[in-house]
């Protein structure tokens, strides 16, 4: 037993010594794996974070979102639909919502008008404010707004200030800031201007009795899908449930991340080939060494063990460090260069950081595509060397 432990300890020491002796091979593998895993982990961790953020938002979204469809396009929905939908068994509440976009400077902001019934219907206290307060039903039609950090920084406004926004119908609208969303909620609120429903309708010059969409809350005892199925006969209605929203967002972020992952997987294959080529070159150099070791009594398994330990050390060192660097690159630097691939035409306001989620699944996936190929590409040449007749190996190496 002690002999076995001592033997493996000596083999370990010999492996570690090889890492130092074959400096060029060690450096090539370390650098290439480090770069590849840094990039791929930054993308995967960010993709996972975006997906989780989408999940959180979808979880909190209304059970059903209703839109009016005309000619395959989304149009404003008439208030008569509130009555139609409210009569359906299982529907607890139908809230009207008007929202849209307002361009200010080079940015586009999201203007949201909330139904006063919905403000009273809130299931909890809004704590995501840095300053001021959230809207109440009494704010209906008063011009009071709550704004996100992006707008607050851009216009240098604080709670208590008045701002004038020019609508798309070229009318000036004066608003009074009563609340400012906090940094912690910026990923959700950075671009938002929240106001009452009637203020939003006035800002967007909406026709009387028309809204952007309806939010339907289903009774907790009812299944939203079965309630939605009862709405199928209502004309021109497009029904979105939470499951559909979640699948859509996951498909979008997943596909974007997937394209990048595919490209980097191809690169990883190339890197594995580099590692293989290095192992062959060094293998040629070490043929003499292997022959000598076998003459001294090393078995084929001992030689494979030496190379296996070398690869494991190199693989785990480069991949783990690469993932830590990838995490830092995404979490602290907002992944410049890579984030554009995930966000498409979008931009990322400097007011918030990318959501980064280091999931165990992604970590093990990256290990699987880096360490395992490295093991194969270094152990196979070592095995080929080790099964050669020692005398022949030394003669070939000396020739």
């Amino acid at each position, binding site marked *: 037993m002690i002999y076995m432990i001592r033997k493996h300890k000596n083999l370990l020491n010999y492996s570690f010594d090889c890492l130092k002796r074959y400096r060029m091979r060690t450096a090539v593998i370390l650098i290439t794996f480090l770069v590849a895993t840094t990039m791929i982990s930054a993308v995967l961790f960010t993709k996972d974070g975006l997906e989780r953020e989408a999940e959180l938002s979808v979880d909190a979204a209304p059970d059903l*979102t209703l839109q009016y469809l005309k000619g395959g396009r989304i149009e404003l929905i008439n208030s008569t639909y509130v009555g139609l939908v409210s009569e359906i068994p299982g529907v607890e509440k139908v809230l009207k919502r008007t929202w849209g976009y307002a361009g200010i400077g080079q940015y586009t902001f999201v203007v949201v008008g909330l139904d006063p019934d919905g403000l009273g219907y*809130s299931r*909890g206290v809004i704590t995501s404010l840095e300053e001021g307060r959230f809207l109440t039903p009494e704010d209906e039609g008063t011009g009071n707004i709550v704004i996100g950090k992006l707008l607050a920084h851009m216009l240098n406004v604080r709670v208590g200030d008045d701002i004038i926004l020019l609508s798309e119908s070229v009318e000036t609208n004066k608003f009074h800031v009563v609340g400012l969303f906090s940094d912690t909620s910026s990923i959700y609120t950075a671009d938002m201007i929240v106001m009452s429903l009637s203020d939003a309708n006035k800002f967007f010059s909406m026709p009387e009795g028309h809204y952007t969409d309806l939010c339907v809350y289903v009774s907790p005892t009812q299944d939203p899908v079965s309630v939605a199925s009862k709405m199928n006969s209502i004309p021109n209605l497009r029904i979105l449930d939470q499951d559909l929203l979640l*699948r859509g967002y996951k498909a979008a972020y997943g596909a974007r991340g997937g394209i990048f992952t595919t490209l980097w997987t191809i690169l990883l294959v190339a890197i594995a080939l580099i590692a293989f080529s290095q192992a062959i070159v060094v293998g040629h150099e070490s043929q003499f060494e292997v022959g000598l070791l076998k003459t001294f009594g090393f078995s084929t398994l001992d030689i494979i063990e030496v190379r296996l330990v070398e690869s494991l050390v190199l693989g785990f060192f480069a991949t783990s460090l690469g993932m830590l660097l990838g995490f830092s690159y995404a979490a602290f630097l907002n992944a410049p260069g890579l984030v554009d*691939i995930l966000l498409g035409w979008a931009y990322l306001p400097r007011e918030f950081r990318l959501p980064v989620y280091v999931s165990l699944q992604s970590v093990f996936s990256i290990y699987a595509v880096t360490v395992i190929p490295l093991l194969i590409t270094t152990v196979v040449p070592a095995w080929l060397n080790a099964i050669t007749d020692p005398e022949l190996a030394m003669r070939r190496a000396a020739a």
Partner: protein
Amino acid sequence: MRRIVVLPALAIVFTAALMSLAAYSESQWSNHEYDKNLREILGFPSIAIGTNYEGTRNPLLEVFVRSLYDIPGGYDYIVSSSFIDTPMRLVDFRERTPGFNFTAVKG
């Protein structure tokens, strides 16, 4: 410490650090419920990215890029960018979006 064990020792340290980070991240995200009340009251399923592109916050369909939005006949949610998937391939779009499934039934 002998110099030859520096690399293996660092490999263990980095791997342990990464595993700790992953475990911390998992626990943080599993208990992540910030802004739940706010998200409930606003009801937007998306996050505040991509607002240079007008469809970002629109529930679901406009996540798929409206690259041909202004071209007559270019249905915004049928035409997708090359960056992301094609809604036509997604069962949800074909089967569950009213007005989307134009399949003719012979009878």
